[in-house]
């Protein structure tokens, strides 16, 4: 259906709303996946989605939402959302003021992946799959995936905001499993970027490294569990700031909770003076970048920790009003199936000034923990599984080790940060963030190398 026609139907339905505030978001999405598993085509497929969500707020009630597929019936769902809002008790929800915007945000790329045939994408992935398998017979299983997604989004509010946004992303994911003498090891890498097809070309090295690392890990000893001075590489440091601190900076975690608010009070010192961290939805080319969040609020750079002190947090319109803080542009939804909640965009630890060699030069016995399979946090408790690691011995990188799990208490760990590398980079990896049943949400993250003293490294005793 034509863009103008869609807009007309949505306008018409929105105009009929009986709620105090109403917004409608309608999306069309198209996803292509090409998946090779261990030298064989698994699937090459294209999947399409079309649907929307209506969100209503009543001053005599609360938030009601209704999701739907059938555009022609949107008016029914405007009413359904109103009915949901009306079923709630009065709760004085206020929305922080944001000026209504009318805008069209286009997605412009060099090579539009929608114009590339499935068979060309299949040839590309086949090549990468072969690159993984170059590591030899020890590789018993491997995956190579290509994916692209194209999203078209209409957003209308009863306050007059009208945004039409196009967004897209290309991605690759490689993994390898190697086995020898009863030992099994995995390695994986991914890449994703809101960009054109040109960005997924020439990634043979990435694929080859995955196969090679899985094989090398077979002969690496498991790290000996204990407390170490640890250096996190940029990827693991990024995951740390996202998982452990970023989530705690999401205002919806604290605004209902007096004790948690006391814990996360602005102005409190969390880290040494040289430590700065933030979230920035405006960084060119990063996965969490959008001109507006899913409430039509312009994104911006939000410092979370400045000179070691907590200076800000991430907000939706509701949490900003509730806490009397400024809007940050962090209300995001993964798709039309969900209402926006407070989320990160591109979260980072700002660059430091220590060259990598100086960062490790006085560590007698430590661990250099690299990359990440992901992690889990429960407020102050966190645990991350590193992709691999090296021992640091007498100020130098020594042997490769496996089974590196970094765990600890967030507050202790932040206080124990001793140094930051001068080598900040944005990590352009795939996957995404999960919260409240909404995942994976594309987010960006970046950091320099980070040195932390006295970190618990799990492993076998």
């Amino acid at each position, binding site marked *: 259906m034509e863009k103008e026609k869609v807009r007309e139907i949505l306008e018409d339905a929105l105009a009929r709303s009986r709620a105090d505030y109403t917004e409608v978001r309608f999306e069309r999405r198209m996803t292509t996946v090409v998946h090779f598993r*261990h030298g064989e085509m*698994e*699937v*090459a*497929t*294209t*999947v*399409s*989605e*079309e*649907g929307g969500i209506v969100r209503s707020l009543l001053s005599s009630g*609360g*938030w*009601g*939402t*209704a999701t*739907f*597929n*059938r*555009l022609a019936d949107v008016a029914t769902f405007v009413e359904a959302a109103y009915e*949901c*809002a009306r079923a*709630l*008790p009065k*709760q004085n929800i206020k929305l922080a003021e944001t000026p209504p915007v009318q805008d069209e945000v286009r997605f412009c790329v060099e090579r539009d992946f929608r114009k590339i045939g*499935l*068979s060309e994408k*299949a040839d590309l992935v086949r090549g990468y799959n072969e690159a993984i398998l170059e590591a030899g017979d020890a590789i*018993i*299983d491997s995956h190579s995936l290509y994916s692209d997604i194209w999203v078209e989004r209409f957003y209308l509010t009863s306050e007059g905001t009208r945004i039409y946004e196009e967004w897209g992303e290309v991605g690759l994911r490689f993994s390898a*499993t190697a*086995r020898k003498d009863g*030992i*099994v090891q*995995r390695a994986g890498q991914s890449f994703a970027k809101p960009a054109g097809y040109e960005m997924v070309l020439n990634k043979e090295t990435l694929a080859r490294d995955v196969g090679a690392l899985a094989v090398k890990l077979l002969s690496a000893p498991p790290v000996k*569990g204990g407390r170490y001075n640890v250096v996190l590489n940029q990827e693991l440091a990024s995951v740390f700031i996202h998982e452990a601190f970023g989530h705690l900076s999401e205002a919806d975690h604290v605004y*209902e909770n007096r*004790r*948690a608010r*006391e*814990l996360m009070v602005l102005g409190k010192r969390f880290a040494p003076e040289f430590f700065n961290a933030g979230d920035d939805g405006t960084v060119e080319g990063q996965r969490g970048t959008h001109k507006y969040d899913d409430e039509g609020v312009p994104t911006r750079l939000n410092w979370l920790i400045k000179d070691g002190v907590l200076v800000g947090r991430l907000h939706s319109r509701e949490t900003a009003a509730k806490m009397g803080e400024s809007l940050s542009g962090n209300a995001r939804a993964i798709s039309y*199936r969900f209402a926006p909640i407070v989320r990160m965009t591109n979260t980072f630890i700002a660059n430091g000034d220590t060259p990598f060699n100086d960062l490790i030069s006085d560590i007698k016995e430590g661990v250099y923990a690299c990359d990440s399979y*992901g*992690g*889990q946090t*429960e407020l*102050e*408790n*966190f*645990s991350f*599984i590193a992709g691999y690691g090296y021992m640091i011995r007498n100020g130098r990188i020594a042997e490769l080790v496996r*089974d590196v*799990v970094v*765990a600890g*208490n967030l*507050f202790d760990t932040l206080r124990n940060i001793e140094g930051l590398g001068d080598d900040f980079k944005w990590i352009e990896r795939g996957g995404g963030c999960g919260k409240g049943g909404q995942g994976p949400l594309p987010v960006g993250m970046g950091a320099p190398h980070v040195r932390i003293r006295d970190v*618990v490294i*799990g492993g*076998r*005793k």
Partner: protein
Amino acid sequence: MLERLCDLRRAVEKEGGAAELYALKYEQCGIELTDGKTKKASRKQETGYALRVIHKGRVGFSACAGAEPAPDLVEQALASAQLGAQARFQFPPPQKPQKDVTTYDDRTPKLTFQQAREVGERLCATLKERYPEALVEAGVSWGWAETHLLNSSGTECSQRFSSYSVSAMVQQVKGEEITIVFCGKQGFGPKDEFASRVTEVILERLNAAEREAKITSGPKKVIFDPMYGVFSILTPLWEGFDGENVARKASPLTGRVGEKIFSDLLTIVDDPLTEGVGAYMWDGEGVAARRNVLVDGGVLRNFVFDLENAARAGMEPTGSARRGLLSRPKPSFSNFIIERGETPLSDIIASIDEGLYVVNPLAAWGANPLSGQFSTPLGFALKIEKGEIVGRVRQVSIAGNIYEDLKRVAAVSREAEWFGNRLIPHILVDGINVVAK
């Protein structure tokens, strides 16, 4: 809806292919409560269509979420088949169900937001009364779905499902120490005991957590709790039993049927014909559901298979193909059951001189799925001392290898409880490596 599916089937057959059409329509309602107040109400409705084809010996797939099938669905599926995997199976002819099983409760679609609010608000009030300082969140959700599957071999099966769930979370902050306790119960329809059980579990945990305890490092006796403890720690097994990994010899259990892999106290069954939220009469490919014994007294008996992977592995399909709105069928679990044992939980606890009761291991999914090795901090765990639970331990991890550790199961409790699609007892393992600060 069925008519549209028949049209699509004809369109594929006209091109000389065989088709499998799947349609899902669901509606889901829910409320969310924070600190006793119902904050949000939602209603979700979604329809989707999936088409799998076998064309010129290759498998193709496409799907769409939308009120109507996408106009190019057939074209996309055929294009997918041009590049697709070699077909090792055919779409099955109609199969008689082995047994009727409940998957639907008429009362569920009739539930109102008002009724849900009463349940949620009462639940929050009870928790808040006991812990006025804590943050209390709760949710009540209910939904219903219909699925239709038809293929070119004459299979046409339609099923109805419903679900109802009550959950709550309490978060307590003391200085920089945070305690989070969660519990949720699910079924086909509203049940009063869900809310009371959720309350009971949460209060029991918070009560035990009021005291702090210390434990030393070393091998200990550890009881895993049915809700998350057992489930989390078994994570590597999900991949081990997965027919897709077995067919590709990527499972460490490949080729080991008949071998004793765990303690004889462990019997593990996947059973879609038991009344539980994972129940169904036909799987996602129209294969009749059946009880599937995975481990019998510690001896490996079978895996979960869909058609493709069963054919690849040279085994029988087990009726375990599951599918979502937009994804191809994959082997998975229906109702995952660990058979209960003979020892009352109280006797198991009483038998322990020094050990742990593990409720919530963090990031247990990070375990090596193939070797079974894990190292996981404990989000919530209690210390057992001289046969009694004495308090909560903090900053403690456990590490080991699940395939090795499950050979040392010392007791399985007489009590078992449903959480989601899992019916699981308490499991005591002797000699789990505990790492304390």
